[in-house]
């Protein structure tokens, strides 16, 4: 916490003097079980500002504790008393749903570094809302496409019983063409998967697709490896991101997962990002860190072209997405959500550290399924 305050203060000191700058409010999860994600988004964002040597961004950071009501209070405070121009940082879809619609209605620009609920991508899309990560369904759709390609004729699929969990299974089924042996919803926050694993063992499916973010995924992976069940696993990158691989351990080795980013993506922006991140924080970046980094660079690119006081011009500059993304090709669709490649990764051991490498491309120039419902041009 003290370190956090000091970094925040340092950034503010370094940037506070600017007169014509952009004031950014970052609401993210820095305490509780989901803190690893928020910390990576924050660190990635701050790294981009440092690397750009930019002094026109004033950053206000606050911890939402993964509570929707806290996030709403913070957003009110940032909009009314801090008078920020841009909001960003939210990790969880339920918090985004609580904050984003009200913030954009008050004329603030929101840049999402992580959450991409379907409700904000379709008919209720907004010209002030930009998603720099993905629409929630995307990585799951890619997993479905990969399952077809891998020739899996039957799948056992499971996810927690909450909106992002149902979105995950919907996304997977949208692309998967084979037979679903069994569809299972677990409890949110569940950490014992003995019962589910017994059912997977008995199902005789060709492969298992699971979406279990954070600690849920760690528990599932360890127990799955220990159960001796040999059915292969596929998942979105959230259960194999750099922040939790160390805790999963060797159980994750060789597992296939889908992601829009990987540390071995071969482009100069990504190489510089990975190198500088390791140097600054002493650990490998996760996909969340890359999303925070891209979000900051998108903002900086728009600031070069337009002034925040001319919001229409600033929006147009954001929509051009004229920055070097760590993902390589990156552009926005009509609903301000990314059109991008989604890759297939494999968990490997590299220099004694578990990490991912790209083994293929699941979907090229992929756009979400809700864009057509969005009235934006």
């Amino acid at each position, binding site marked *: 916490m003290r370190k956090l305050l000091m970094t925040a203060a340092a950034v503010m000191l370094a940037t506070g003097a600017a007169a014509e700058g952009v004031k950014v409010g970052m609401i993210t999860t820095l*305490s509780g079980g989901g803190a690893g994600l928020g910390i990576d988004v924050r660190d990635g964002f701050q790294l981009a500002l440092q690397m750009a040597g930019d002094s026109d961004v004033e950053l206000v950071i606050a911890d939402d504790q993964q509570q929707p009501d806290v996030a709403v209070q913070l957003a009110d405070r940032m909009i009314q008393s801090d008078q920020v121009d841009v909001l960003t940082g939210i990790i969880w879809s339920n918090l985004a749903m609580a904050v984003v619609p009200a913030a954009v209605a008050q004329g603030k620009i929101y840049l999402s570094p992580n959450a991409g609920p379907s409700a904000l991508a379709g008919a209720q899309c907004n010209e002030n809302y930009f998603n720099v990560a993905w629409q929630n369904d995307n990585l799951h759709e890619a997993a479905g496409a990969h399952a077809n390609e891998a020739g899996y004729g039957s799948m056992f699929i499971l996810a927690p019983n909450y909106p992002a969990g149902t979105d995950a299974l919907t996304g997977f089924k949208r692309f998967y063409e084979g037979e679903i042996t069994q569809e299972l919803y677990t409890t949110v926050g569940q950490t014992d998967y003995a019962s589910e694993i017994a059912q997977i063992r008995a199902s005789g499916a060709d492969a298992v697709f699971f979406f279990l973010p954070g600690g849920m995924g760690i528990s599932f992976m360890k127990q799955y490896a220990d159960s001796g069940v040999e059915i292969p696993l596929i998942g979105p990158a959230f259960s194999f991101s750099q922040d939790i691989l160390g805790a999963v351990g060797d159980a994750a080795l060789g597992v296939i997962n889908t992601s829009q980013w990987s540390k071995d993506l071969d482009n100069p922006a990504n190489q510089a990002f990975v190198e500088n991140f390791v140097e600054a924080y002493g650990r490998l970046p996760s996909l969340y860190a890359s999303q925070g980094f891209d979000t900051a660079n998108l903002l900086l690119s728009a600031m070069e072209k337009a002034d925040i006081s001319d919001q229409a011009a600033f929006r147009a500059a954001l929509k051009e997405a004229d920055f070097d993304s760590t993902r390589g090709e990156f552009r926005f669709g009509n609903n301000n959500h990314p059109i991008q490649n989604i890759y297939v990764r494999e968990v490997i051991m590299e220099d004694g550290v578990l990490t991912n490498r790209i083994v293929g491309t699941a979907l090229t120039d992929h756009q979400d399924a809700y864009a057509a419902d969005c009235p934006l041009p």
Partner: protein
Amino acid sequence: MSAMLLIEQALNGLQLGVMLFLMAAGLTLVFGVMGLINLAHGSLYMVGAFACAVVAAHTGSYLLGLAAALAAAAAAGALVEIVVIRRLYDRDHLDQVLATFALILVFSEGTRYLFGSLPLYLNVPAALSGPVMLPGGIAYPAFRLAIIAIGLAVALGLFWLIARTRLGIRIRAGESDRQMIAALGVDIRRLYTIVFALGAALAGLAGALVGTLQSVEVGMGEPVLILAFVVIVIGGIGSIKGALVGAILVGVTDTMGRFLLPQIFATFMDPSRATGVGSALASMLIYILMAVVLILRPQGLFGARA
């Protein structure tokens, strides 16, 4: 659905039950003897898991990790009792809940300060990794069998301690009449510290064992704490026997409910709706069980007091 799958699920329920017992035993002892509601019990569970992960990582020995978990949780428990809890015995339950809730925050953020927000690595020791073949061709993880064995052994040990030893006599005496046992010259403050440390050590052991299967991270204790409270309410507050029966009842009900309910609904509904309804109902099942027990026996299954 085969009989093998059913037996495997029953074992899973039993394993969850004995794990809950380790948590609930400490909670029910502390409430029974001191009349204290301790929300920070889940934090002691977390302390055990972190101690085990750190020591096992440094020494490479899982057994040393387990010993460290017991010692660290007991020490943390004794310290907390002497510094904070001791001042709360005469206060009403609301003060106790507030103070021990504050302890949760202190423990969580303190742990985060020391170890960071990323989960720690702790895995099953090589000797117990992988499945073993049970009679009837059931492959079951060896470590889960070990948890069942350890839990049942601890239960036996506790019954022996309470029924046969001098400490046990004092604990039972403390439960029935606090003033009288103090008047008889028993150092009640020391007794309280010992009981609290004992409960903490059991929570720490549960944390280390479960952390091995699941993930060692800040905030891991609170979800288990809620289940442990359900267990002691069902079993009867203050009763070790109640804690054991309640824990196994909750463990088996929860596991079997999550497994069977979606399948039962699937016989007369379309599969995806059955999954949704079944899962939702299954997560409520133990609370429904608790409500039924409270209606029929307000003092719990083995509770002496209402």
